[in-house]
């Protein structure tokens, strides 16, 4: 698999990149994203470094057990993957040249860039007919190295009718500056079910997750943004068949002056669909989190039930949160609600803990954890994932607390 020679948008002076004047990108950290792209492609880029397999394998050590599909810079890496050799219900991976396929019009310049830069799609067929045996967890790992400019992985995950699957998709990168521009599409067949979780731990990113839910299917899509670099994650959910049930849960922990932007677009195209959204963010001093939720209920549908919640916890005078919980309703037989809150840790709760002899810093950490845990519990479909995820979230929260303490010390 060689990278295509198609000129990238960057080569053409990035004529079409969205700006903050585009409603979908209003809060996106475009400056940071462009800087990351420049760092991986521009003249400032450091010495190209092709990492050894061991180096990459080290990045995978802490992942929970299960099948493993690894992509390095958008290309399938069988040598790092752990596959089900001959197992009846294990995942099947297929790398297809999709350059000639008739794709729908790209949503934005980044998706177009992804297509023009990578002609191959990694197709993964998952699912077993049972209740989704936790040991059959499929872990899809995207590793971005800075060796080859921005990485453009494109993945399609298919859950055939009546099957169940659990898929965790993790984005990680080597310490050098790297930019990932990924698209993952989930096809959830009739009466099928999937638990999907995106964990963004890498460098700067633009990631799209597309979920197409067929008749009576059930999909939970999670998103965790805890990386040390800014980016934009877009979830596009289509309730394509009647009776589909979708639940979206997101947790963002923005530390280190990062800015994580999430957009969740849920299209109720058919009747009797249910969608639930809960997005929460914890924002350190000097960092920013933004959320845009778009629920659209199509004309002519009936029996839609949609709920959308966004909670933001700000941890310092320089923390910022933006939220746009949007509803666009074209049918009267609906029950749609949304809510959004922005605030800091409850002073009363902190006082309560302190009055019982708990140090201020510990009290605040406890309350932050409690805030995060309610979301993590919803995100993790099994014990192994929860333990792993809690550890990853705790690590970032600890860093924020330590950083806050050191600034306070300096004041």
């Amino acid at each position, binding site marked *: 698999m060689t990278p295509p020679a198609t000129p990238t948008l960057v080569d053409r002076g990035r004529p079409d990149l969205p700006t903050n004047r585009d409603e979908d990108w209003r809060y996106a950290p475009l400056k940071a994203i462009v800087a990351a792209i420049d760092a991986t492609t521009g003249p400032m880029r450091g010495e190209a470094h092709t990492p050894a397999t061991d180096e990459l394998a080290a990045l995978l050590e802490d992942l929970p057990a299960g099948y493993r599909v690894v992509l390095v810079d958008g290309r399938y890496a069988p040598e790092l993957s752990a596959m089900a050799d001959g197992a009846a219900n294990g995942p099947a991976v297929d790398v297809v040249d999709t350059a000639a396929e008739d794709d729908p019009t790209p949503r934005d310049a980044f998706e177009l860039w992804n297509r023009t830069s990578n002609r191959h799609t990694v197709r993964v067929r998952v699912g077993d007919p049972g209740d989704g045996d936790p040991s059959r967890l499929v872990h899809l790992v995207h590793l971005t190295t800075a060796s080859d400019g921005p990485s453009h992985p494109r993945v399609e995950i298919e859950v055939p009718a009546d099957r169940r699957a659990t898929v965790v998709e993790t984005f990680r990168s080597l310490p050098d500056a790297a930019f990932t521009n990924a698209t993952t599409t989930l096809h959830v067949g009739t009466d099928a079910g999937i638990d999907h979780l995106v964990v963004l731990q890498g460098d700067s990113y633009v990631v799209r997750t597309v979920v197409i839910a067929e008749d009576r299917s059930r999909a939970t899509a999670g998103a965790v943004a805890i990386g040390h670099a800014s980016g934009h994650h877009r979830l596009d959910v289509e309730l394509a068949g009647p009776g589909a049930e979708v639940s979206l849960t997101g947790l963002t922990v923005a530390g280190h002056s990062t800015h994580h932007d999430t957009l969740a677009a849920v299209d109720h195209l058919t009747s009797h669909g249910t969608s639930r959204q809960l997005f929460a963010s914890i924002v350190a001093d000097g960092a920013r989190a933004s959320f845009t939720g778009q629920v659209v209920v199509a004309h*002519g549908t009936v029996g839609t039930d949609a709920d959308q919640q966004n909670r933001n916890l700000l941890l310092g*005078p320089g923390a*910022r949160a933006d939220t746009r919980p949007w509803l666009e309703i074209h049918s*009267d037989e*609906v029950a749609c*609600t949304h*809510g*959004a809150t922005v605030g800091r840790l409850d002073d009363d709760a902190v006082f309560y803990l302190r009055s019982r002899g708990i140090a201020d810093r510990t009290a605040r950490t406890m309350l932050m954890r409690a805030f995060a845990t309610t979301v993590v519990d919803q995100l993790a479909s099994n014990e192994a994932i929860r333990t792993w995820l809690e550890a990853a979230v705790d690590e970032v929260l600890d860093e924020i607390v330590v950083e806050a303490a050191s600034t306070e010390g300096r004041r």
Partner: protein
Amino acid sequence: MTDTTTETDTTAQLDDLVGGEYRYGFVTDIDSEIVPVGLDESVVRLIASKNGEPDWLVEWRLGALRHFLTLEAPTWPYLRIDPIDYQAISYWAAPKAKGPAPESLDDIDPKLREMFDKLGISVAEQERLSGVAVDAIVDSVSVATTFRERLAESGVIFCPFSEAVREHPDLVRKYLGSVVGPRDNFYAALNSAVFSDGSFCFVPAGVRCPMELSTYFRINSAGTGQFERTLIIAEEGASVSYLEGCSAPRRDENQLHAAVVELIALDDSSIKYSTVQNWYPGDENGKGGIYNFVTKRGRAGNRARISWTQVETGSAITWKYPSVILQGDDAVGEFSSVALTTNHQQADTGTKMVHIGRNTTSSIVSKGISAGHAQNTYRGQVKVMRSAVGARNHTRCDSLLLGPDCGAHTFPYIEVGTDGAQVEHEASTSRIGEDQLFYCRQRGLDEEDATAMIVNGFCRDVFDDLPMEFAVEANALLRVSLEGAVG
């Protein structure tokens, strides 16, 4: 609707009502003076000279015009607007004066008075009975202002804008454009260039305005737009309540109304601004109607309070976001709105609350009702700056859908730049519950009555904020507008 007992009677009556729903659609045959269509510097100069304006204001207008000509109409609203030819509109129209300018109400053209009688706001009547001071504006010119002497006794200035420019140039120059600048946005720039008249109100320090002030706007002439400018200033510790009503004749063409309202609430003052907007909404096929593109904004000083209350039932298209800049510490901003759209009406309306001062609070209550093929959008921004430590906002935003072909949309923007703020937003969208309707019908109400009652309850929070006489009018207006929209 009355206590009619049989279904047929109700239907017949309803048909009548649907046929003549817009009660204010008559045209009064008054001689009026209209400038030729088109928009250029000569038109702006002509408008300025009609009002006898000083040079600085002429220059101010010309600056706005030059800026306007470089702008493009905004495309972000959730509205379908046919392209507007700004060169095909006459920018100034006035009822032609018969002899010298009217000295008092008795001197104004009897036909004009007749028109106001038809509108049910009879200027003379209102003066006598309700003790509300009224400034009535037809097309571009203010035709009558009542109760001026009594207001003057307490130091309150309430007069047509053109007169304020002549009599109180210092005040006008100091505050005009200080909240909505001439380059603020597309429609505000247009208004700044061609505004004709409007109301001016000044309440000096420490004065509580002795009566409610009111302006009645009416577009009468064909082929014109209305561009009025309202400026209300409450000095330190002053308070005033201001009411605004609007109507227009039925016409097949679309007419443009682009107004600017600026409120300046200095420290410890309070301004309450209430609107019942009932411009002609177009017929049931969406033909004709007023395009209502209005910029309304207030600036609140320390401990000042600005309240916007609006009932929007008219206009083919509404684009309007009454806003408050909470600049001073402890300032309060309030926005309560009922927006009703039926047939092919479109509304993109909401508010902006910008928190700058410490401990500023704002509350937003928005009730949208959509019926027929209408599209009703709430778009609101709550922005908390880093300086606004202790800021609080609560937003409640509900939409009601009547019928399968209408749309109700909620587009909030919440931007918080400090951890010292607390912001909450909640919203819901649904139709009238079967159980609610069933409950009412079981107790002998027909479906129309039941719907009207439920909708009324849905809007209660906002109606409670309206001054008494407006609350009654708003209620009636809602009922009339809803007729034929149900079932």
